[in-house]
């Protein structure tokens, strides 16, 4: 479906008129004189980036766990237990299977009293209801920004936006291969998708730790509208 556009011509004509020329509908790509963002963490190795990520998590009230596929299940369980278990909502994502998590979660959790709900594109209302009352939401980062400690999540029918911010606690799985220096690389990655004609996700979320606010006397409160706690689990996947 194509949306409507109203009142554009007069609006843009006024702008062009003020700028002293005719309206433009074409423009060459700008060439920038400065590109300071290129320098940041330029030659860092993946391992160095992981170190930067670990350091940064200290500044953003986020716990971080380093693990590998062999130990992932055990380490994830620790975090889930630490967060009080009860109810977990996850994306529908084949990587849960690939990492050996799906079988573990579906087989063991009901016995442990942990209710598991997987996002279901055919059950819109139920999805929101479950996410709203869930204790924990588990998502997977597509690109991870070391400098700021940021996970980048792309929404889709299987990967609801709400999973990362409706539940009280947030666990984000971070495959080590997704870690890049900073947002600069993520922006390029997204632009390539656009150039390839891909339709980018309706929501791309750059998430850095749990939600917070300093609106009351500039005192930092962690956990306002979004999650009150966050943990990143970095998985050695190479």
């Amino acid at each position: 479906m194509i949306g409507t556009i109203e009142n554009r011509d007069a609006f843009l004509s006024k702008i062009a008129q003020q700028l002293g020329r005719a309206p433009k509908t074409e423009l060459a790509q700008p060439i920038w004189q400065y590109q300071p963002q290129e320098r940041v963490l330029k030659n860092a190795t993946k391992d160095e980036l992981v170190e930067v990520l670990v350091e940064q998590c200290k500044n953003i009230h986020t716990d971080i766990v380093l693990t590998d596929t062999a130990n992932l299940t055990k380490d994830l369980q620790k975090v889930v237990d630490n967060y009080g278990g009860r109810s977990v909502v996850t994306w529908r994502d084949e990587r849960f299977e690939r990492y050996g998590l799906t079988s573990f979660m579906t087989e063991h959790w009901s016995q442990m009293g942990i209710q598991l709900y997987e996002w279901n594109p055919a059950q819109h209302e139920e999805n929101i209801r479950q996410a709203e009352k869930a204790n924990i939401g588990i998502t997977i980062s597509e690109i991870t920004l070391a400098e700021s400690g940021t996970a980048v999540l792309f929404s889709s029918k299987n990967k609801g936006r709400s999973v990362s911010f409706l539940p009280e606690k947030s666990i984000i799985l971070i495959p080590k291969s997704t870690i890049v220096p900073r947002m600069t690389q993520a922006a390029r990655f997204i632009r390539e998708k656009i150039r390839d004609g891909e339709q980018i996700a309706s929501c791309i979320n750059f998430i850095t730790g749990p939600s917070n606010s300093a609106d009351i006397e500039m005192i930092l409160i962690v956990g306002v509208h979004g999650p009150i706690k966050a943990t990143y689990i970095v998985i050695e996947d190479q």
Partner: protein
Amino acid sequence: MAMKTSDDLFNHRVTKELDNTFMRGAVSSAQERFQTRRLLQAAELGHWEEWRSHGEEIRKHVLANLDFYLYQLSENVAQRGGHVYFAQTAKEATDYIKGIAKKKNAKKIVKSKSMVTEEINLNTVLEELSCEVIETDLGEYILQVDDHEPPSHIVVPALHKNKEQIRDVFKEKQGYDKTEKPEELALYVREKLRNEYLTADIGITGCNFAIAESGSITLVTNEGNADLVTALPKTQITVMGMERIVPTFEEMEVLVSLLTRSAVGQKLTSYITTLTGIKEEGDTDGPEEFHLVIVDNGRSDILGGEFQPILQCIRCAACVNACPVYRHVGGHTYGSIYSGPVGVVLSPLLGGYDDYKELPYASTLCGACTDACPVKIPLHQLIHRHRQVIVENEGRAPVSEKLLMKAFGLGASSPTLYKMAAKMASPTMSPFTKDNKISNGPGPLKAWTETRDFPAPNKDNFRNWLKQRSKGGEQ
């Protein structure tokens, strides 16, 4: 509430706010914190001047080609199923949004923080339709509950309120019965607003940066409220000032990096979200209907003129945090939702000189704002330019001042007149002079001597000393 926040006279506002001890303490301590963090982040990032220059060139380029980028943006938004409405005036914007609310029979609307929606007085218009409009940003929510008190800072709107005052607001208006501890106040708001997101008909947001190449809008928050506002209600309306746009994701990330460091001293805020069009097929969350309202409201009149650089602004409030005048008088003194240096420049341009003629004089032209601006807007020069316009074009300078300045102009260009004045200065001022100083000055000096002594004019002026000396007088 529109851009103008007070009908009171400027001088009254100054006196009132100078008396507000809590506000002044809160503002100066917030300034310290924000400035320190901004400088720390700039140092850690390195090559800060290059970053500023890059930010400046991006914003200048966009303004010079604004019509193109808005064209591209609108095409791409429409491609992704969104509706674009170009609103030249505030009324056009609010009429359009009113139309949507009516069509949807909307009863409840949740909003994330947006200065431009305050500028166009959107909440009032919607409330007249019997819509319940709920601000979800914590600071804005507090002010809304407190009978729509205007914000006093672009980034921390309730900076002027202490936690006891906030507790009292909730107690009186909503029956809150817990303490003034910030965690408890925040938890109360979290629980209260939770259900509102889930039951709202429409979500309204502002726009930190629209991205032309993809038809996306970018929202920058720490609270995550903008995500809830846009994920849950079926209809989303985004209102943007027309200049809040970048060409691609690459420029967005540069400006976001400058914004978050300059505003709150963070590398990135907790939630930076780019939203593109309506929800995709099969998506559970996200809007079924999306409207982008692009607002002019006087901005195009600034284009092509000498004040154009103010449109480079990314609303970080670094200038506000650096301003030594704001430090003492706080945001409400400016009588505009845009306070501090950016407000001094922008308010008269968008709102006219009638309501804002004193603002350009509420500055020492110290340049701290210009230094702090991440996109290198020459703020103090624009403030000075307003003074020139006020004097020359608007003819609004007070008559007594005009006369004084004319006298100055004469005296300062005539050595004879000057020497006469210099000779007369000491005897003229002698009735006011005691112990070689003036403690109770006449005329314009009175405002000075309320708090300070003024030195008595040299009895024997310097140039005579120099002349005597070269004649072989005293060595």
